[in-house]
């Protein structure tokens, strides 16, 4: 702790930079978010409850959370397979595919939205063959699901990848030398040690999909009660000047994402205690 005291005394600018940081943080983040919660307080609990339990709101929340959960599950499985292929195997174009994983992060959501819609529309490159099989993707809940899978895949890959790379080879060697076959080594030894990272990736992909707007609304079809996601319902209520309705839905979604941040933080701590530092 003596270094902490030394730091505080010898370097200048703590008061000024901390003051500016807190001011800027308050102006941009804290006051606007506080405004959101204050606005909800203008509603009586009965009004708040009525908005949230109206059929359209419930359906929008069900669609957003349900499909995000399904998409995060797919991301979990496919993300693990992709990480495994990228880390453990050599194949032509491996480095390029590694870089490609970041595209859903980097591509503006509106661009992803129109591109996915074009791709899966009835006459699109993938939509046409799927339509012949009788599967309609664009403008249905399946479309929402596809967009959520697209947006979530980097979260699982980029969370699990460094952990798999750092995994001590001796664990596997020990398992093999003790007579475990490869199947057992992978499913009983390697995958369990990836669990904190896998769950973190899952939670991050889920959180992103719940809040996602741009890449979903084009492909969604946006039929109330069928393919209308919660963020879109917020936008619709705003355009109808029903601020209270928009705010109530927003507060529920915000609280859900706070719960997810909390869960992710706990997962990180769990991961740090499980995996011994090198």
């Amino acid at each position, binding site marked *: 702790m003596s270094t*902490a005291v030394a730091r*505080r005394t010898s*370097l*200048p*600018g703590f008061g000024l930079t*901390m003051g*500016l*940081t807190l001011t*800027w943080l308050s102006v*941009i*983040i*804290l006051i*606007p*978010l506080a405004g*959101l919660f204050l606005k909800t307080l203008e509603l009586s609990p009965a009004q708040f409850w009525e908005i949230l339990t109206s059929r359209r709101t419930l359906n929008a929340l069900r669609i957003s959370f349900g499909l995000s959960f399904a998409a995060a599950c797919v991301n979990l499985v*496919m993300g693990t397979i*992709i990480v*495994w*292929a990228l*880390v*453990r*195997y050599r*194949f032509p*174009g491996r480095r390029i*595919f590694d*870089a*490609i*994983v970041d*595209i859903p992060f*980097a*591509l503006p*959501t*509106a*661009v992803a939205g*129109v*591109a*996915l*819609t*074009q*791709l899966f529309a009835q006459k699109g*490159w993938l939509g046409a063959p799927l339509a012949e099989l009788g599967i309609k993707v664009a403008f249905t809940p399946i479309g929402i699901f596809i967009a959520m899978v697209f947006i979530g895949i980097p979260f699982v890959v*980029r*969370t699990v*990848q460094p952990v798999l790379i750092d995994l001590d*080879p001796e664990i596997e*060697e020990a398992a*093999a030398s003790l007579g475990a076959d490869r199947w057992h080594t*992978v499913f009983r030894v390697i995958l369990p040690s990836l669990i904190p990272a896998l769950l973190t990736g899952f939670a*991050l992909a889920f959180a*992103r999909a719940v*809040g996602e*707007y741009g890449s979903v609304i084009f492909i969604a079809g946006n039929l109330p009660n069928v393919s209308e996601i919660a963020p*879109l319902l*917020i*936008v619709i209520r*705003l355009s109808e000047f029903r601020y209270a309705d928009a*705010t109530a839905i*927003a507060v529920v979604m915000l609280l859900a*994402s706070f719960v997810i941040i909390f869960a992710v933080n706990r997962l*990180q701590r769990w991961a740090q205690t499980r995996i011994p530092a090198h």
Partner: protein
Amino acid sequence: MSTQTSFVTPEAPLKAYASTAGAAISSLSRREARERPRAIASPKDFRTEPGPVRFVIVALAVSFLTIFVVLPLVVVFASALSKGISAYFAALAEPEALSAIRLTLLVAAISVGLNLLFGVIAAWAIAKFDFPGKTFLVTLIDLPFSVSPVISGLVFVLLFGAQGYWGTWLQAHNIHILFAVPGIALATIFVTFPFVARSLIPLMQEQGTLEEEAAISLGASGLQTFFRVTLPNIKWGLLYGVLLCNARAMGEFGAVSVVSGHIRGETNTMPLLVEILYNEYQFVASFAIASLLAMLALITLVVKTVLEQRLDEELIPRDDPR
């Protein structure tokens, strides 16, 4: 004592960091991957799977990424050029397109500039000093990453909208924030808030304070110390944060969509124009604008890869006596 805060080791913050859009930075931790010898699959290695299994896993990974990530990107350029190269450039030369490009550049300049300034200031306070509540402060800075873009726009509508807290006062004084450049800039600053600070904090913590302390004891002023000692040490990390901040600022859709009002030729940024043109079935024009944003994304990814290699060098702890 080194595990008291969650961001003492370089990996921990970067992994913990990966919430929503900000997860881009989490790939910083991949830098380590390049330095470490990888487990190379050879037929005799018992640490690998049988040949057919390996083939299936690689085939699944490659086809999934091709279908879900590569094809959408290819569709953007194919649709933009579907009526020929002259139609493409004609679409980009439309006055509406030009005004959207100008507005996007203006908003990005404002929000990146302000977030750069305050990101550096916040990183100085957080990385160079110890104080109670540091972890909580970092969580607050990270908040915008976990807020839905629509909600990021909504909070400003509630403050400045006609029915908002300050709406009547603003109207009485004829000040336009919503449906004008200030509102769009505010929403963009909100969603890009954490990028610069978050890419600097782990880096500056890792570098410690010895060099700055030496400069101060030799009589340098605070600003001199920052510009001559700290800045050269963090320049790649700073560029990294600016790069990601800029990409998000130019590409932001949800938050900007809520506050913009969609006034044609006035408050439409490039992503908003993509939406409007697409809904009007002007596919070539829509994908022409989209292709510019896609190119921005690709360039960002390439520069990011280069910067990650530079960052490896910056992350070498400076507290080691040399």
